């Protein structure tokens, strides 16, 4: 009986070891994908900042030009 149980334990241990091996690999893959994502987010953050600057520039030029447009209209009326 004890012998039988020991064999079962041996089999169970082998199963657990292979599951642990699989989990180890999966975690490594999760970590790998995570560092890919960190790099992407950094890149996207930089680009978003750059896009923000460009939007502000367009807004500023549009605003200046709008004022200049009124100025031209004023001169033309005179």
């Amino acid at each position, binding site marked *: 009986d*004890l012998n039988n149980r020991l064999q079962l334990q041996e089999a*169970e241990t082998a199963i*657990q070891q292979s599951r*642990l091996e699989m989990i180890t690999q999966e975690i490594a893959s999760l970590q790998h994908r995570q560092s890919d*994502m960190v790099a*992407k987010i950094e890149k996207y953050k930089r680009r978003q900042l750059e*896009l923000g600057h460009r939007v502000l520039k367009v807004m500023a030029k549009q605003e*200046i030009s709008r004022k200049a447009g009124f*100025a*031209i209209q004023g001169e033309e009326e005179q």
Partner: protein
Amino acid sequence: FLEQATLVNAWDRLLMDNGEKISQLNGDMERVKIDQQRLEQELDFVLSQQLEQEEMLRPLEAAVEQLPVASHQQHA
């Protein structure tokens, strides 16, 4: 003989404990995996939005570039 039985019982308990912990670890891992896939999709979305905004910006930049910018240019 009794000693042997005690040992085997202890191992049984250890194996069971380990088995439970492994199952829990597996569950955690599956959840993190699903979360990660969702984050990756969101990242793809961010990228596509950025490209879209860039495409919106380019003609706007060209348009304001052609505008009379400063008053001294109008007088010249």
